């Protein structure tokens, strides 16, 4: 079943090598004579581009094989083996990972190129490329790993890079705090992941701890353990993919440079949770209860984030909540066992969301790091390329047929309906309308109407070619990739789903044409409603509204951050303080201090007995003698 492909290990290694080279060079030279930016830019792009090349090679390699045998693996060495536990440092390429690989390396390469322009002039240019390369390498390990533990390497690796890149402008405390938040919240998820993986090992891991072996043994899982494993793993996914209750870090993560937001916090890393659930489809499909939890958490997250998205004023935060919301869709998809639909949405989302972020980056770049949409406006004329590409992205995000987002979102909603999850479908449709609304609120406010900051507007212009070309390419992708998985209704063949089929365990329920039509109709209607409302309110220039009542509550994100702060962060800190100031010196150490004090006290008491009068000493002797004779006479009787 498995064939080997030794170049698999090379794919993550290439960006990692790039990271090492750029990182070392930057570290050694930054204090004295920094190397030219172009050097870092070129070296930094080599790794991703080569990786993309190999991803293509791999794709065609797999394509050339019979559908059921599309598994390539490469195990360079045994990572560690203890008792029954044997973890190989192994890589596995199958249709699922090859698809992920393709778009990760493709978008990654584009964003690397874009960054050459965006980051120009930054003193830590080299460091940025090093981190970016490191991220890409970790992401590729995550995708290519042949078992949960190797996946965890990438999983944590991308988390680290996320931390490093969020706090990239580390002189400002806010940025670093955002990075800390991301890392710590991710760690909460990882806690679940590690426990889930460990539980999985004791349940079925003795016969091999890679996906294929686990899949073969998955049938013998007991429901209790199985559901526990699924939920624990999903906790990991919640952390990485920003789902309720761990979504709070992602909006803050926008503190990082915009290419980072595009690559890590929109296109790739945050979708790792979806990928992981799809990877473990053989588990989730066995326990529909766990799947339902995933789906409901997903769709509720989608709703919540969409509501927050309605009221944001920071262009990147709007996109961030939109990302959270779209991730919720994806989880709804994989939760209802429509794994290929979820993954397909990952795929399309990567294009249009990266596009939107890069576009937003271009806007921010043009306005000298202005991110408040209420200080923008009328940029359509000044930045036409950015406008048109972003418009495509926005349309795709809003689900405008026939752009990519429409098909993938439709597929998810249709699957929910087809699997009988009416509630999820209904919420999903509402969220689709909200999505269209907030997306176009952003487009209208930023690009249409009158400039709100005349000075900035006059200086604004389209970004240099190195930044606009990626926009154009992504826009092309955002427009057309949807056709790859055209459903039967539109005369397509669900090619992506079929491609993914060998990797996933899913069932395609057969439902009538009416249901399909209903789903499509609802999706289109939601889009139309949303965009109409947005146009009415913001289409012709609007001023920033005053938020009252629910809107105000939502503007403040339901005060969730404040709630978490009061519930977890402050008690945690307070508890630490209590321990180090009260418990440690006064309670834990008390027995020791008490016995020391007692000893000294008794010593002083004994000193008093040494009166120095010889008579008294004789008296002690006599008293002792009498007592002893008393004991003695007792023992005789």
């Amino acid at each position, binding site marked *: 079943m498995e064939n080997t492909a030794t170049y698999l290990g090379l794919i993550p290694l290439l960006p990692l090598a790039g990271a090492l080279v750029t990182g070392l060079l930057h570290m050694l030279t930054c204090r004295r004579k920094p190397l030219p930016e172009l050097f870092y830019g070129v070296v930094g792009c080599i790794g991703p581009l080569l990786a993309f090349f190999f991803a293509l090679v791999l794709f065609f390699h797999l394509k050339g094989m019979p559908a059921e045998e599309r598994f390539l693996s490469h195990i360079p060495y045994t990572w560690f083996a203890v008792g029954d536990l044997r973890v190989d440092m192994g890589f596995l390429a199958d249709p699922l990972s090859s698809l992920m690989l393709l778009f990760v390396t493709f978008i990654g390469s584009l964003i690397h190129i874009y960054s050459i322009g965006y980051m120009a002039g930054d003193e830590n240019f080299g460091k940025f490329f090093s981190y970016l390369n490191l991220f890409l390498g970790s992401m590729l390990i995550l995708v290519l790993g042949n078992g949960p533990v190797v996946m965890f390497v990438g999983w944590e690796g991308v988390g680290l890079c996320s931390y490093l890149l969020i706090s990239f402008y580390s002189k400002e405390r806010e940025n670093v705090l955002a990075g800390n938040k991301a890392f710590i919240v991710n760690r909460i998820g990882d806690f679940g992941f590690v426990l889930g993986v460990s539980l999985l090992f004791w349940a079925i891991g003795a016969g091999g701890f890679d996906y294929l072996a686990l899949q073969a043994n998955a049938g013998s899982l007991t429901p209790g353990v199985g559901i526990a494993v699924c939920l624990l793993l999903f906790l990991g996914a919640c952390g990485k993919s920003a789902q309720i209750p761990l979504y709070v870090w992602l909006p803050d993560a926008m503190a990082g440079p915009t290419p980072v937001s595009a690559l890590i916090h929109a296109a790739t890393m945050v979708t790792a949770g979806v990928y992981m659930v799809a990877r473990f489809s053989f588990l989730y499909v066995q326990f529909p209860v766990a799947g339902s939890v995933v789906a409901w958490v997903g769709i509720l997250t989608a709703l919540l984030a969409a509501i927050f998205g309605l009221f944001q004023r920071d262009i990147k935060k709007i996109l961030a909540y939109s990302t959270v919301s779209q991730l919720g869709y994806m989880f709804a998809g994989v939760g209802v066992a429509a794994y290929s639909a979820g993954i397909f949405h990952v795929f399309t989302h990567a294009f249009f969301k990266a596009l939107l972020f890069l576009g937003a980056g271009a806007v921010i770049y043009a306005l000298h790091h202005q991110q408040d949409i209420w200080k923008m406006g009328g940029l359509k004329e000044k930045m036409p390329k950015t406008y048109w590409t972003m418009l495509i992205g926005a349309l795709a995000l809003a689900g405008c047929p026939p752009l990519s987002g429409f098909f993938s979102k439709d597929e998810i909603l249709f699957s929910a309906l087809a699997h009988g999850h009416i509630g999820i479908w209904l919420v999903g449709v509402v969220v689709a309308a909200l999505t269209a609304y907030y997306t176009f609120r952003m487009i209208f406010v930023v690009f249409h109407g009158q400039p709100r900051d005349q000075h900035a507007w006059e200086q604004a212009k389209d970004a240099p070619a190195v930044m606009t070309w990626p926009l154009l390419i992504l826009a092309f992708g955002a427009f057309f990739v949807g056709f790859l998985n055209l459903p039967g209704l539109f005369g397509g063949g669900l090619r992506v789903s079929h491609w993914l089929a060998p990797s996933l365990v899913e069932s395609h329920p057969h439902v009538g044409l009416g249901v399909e039509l209903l789903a499509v109709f609802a999706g289109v209607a939601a889009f139309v409603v949303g965009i109409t409302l947005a146009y009415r309110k913001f289409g012709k220039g609007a001023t920033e509204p005053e938020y009252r009542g629910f809107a105000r509550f939502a503007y403040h994100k339901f005060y969730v951050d404040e709630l978490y702060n009061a519930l977890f962060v402050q008690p945690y800190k307070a508890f630490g303080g209590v321990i180090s100031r009260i418990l440690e010196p006064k309670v834990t150490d008390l027995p020791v201090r008490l016995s020391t004090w007692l000893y000294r006290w008794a010593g002083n008491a004994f*000193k008093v007995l040494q*009166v*120095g*009068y*010889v*008579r008294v000493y004789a*008296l002690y002797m006599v008293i002792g003698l009498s007592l002893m004779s008393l004991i003695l006479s007792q023992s005789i009787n």
Partner: protein
Amino acid sequence: MIQDYLILSIILFSLGILGVISRRNVFTVFMSIELMLNAANLAFIALSRLHESMDGHVLAMMVMAVAAAEAALALAVVILLHKHKGKLDTNVFSLLRG
């Protein structure tokens, strides 16, 4: 009969003990100790008779010799004490304490 000797001996011994712990004059204290030793001697002699062996007598002689030696030393001490403080009250000599 032997009990009578022993009881007398123990009474003397106890008187000696009482003297040691109650009197403050060095002389009296040493005399009390002599009393205790003599109590022992009395017991030795009586018991020697009881067992009809000479060990007791020998011991009594030894005790007397030792008592004499100790008395000699005690006198030296008394002189020293008097030289230092002019007093023979044991309570005066409590520089070493605590």
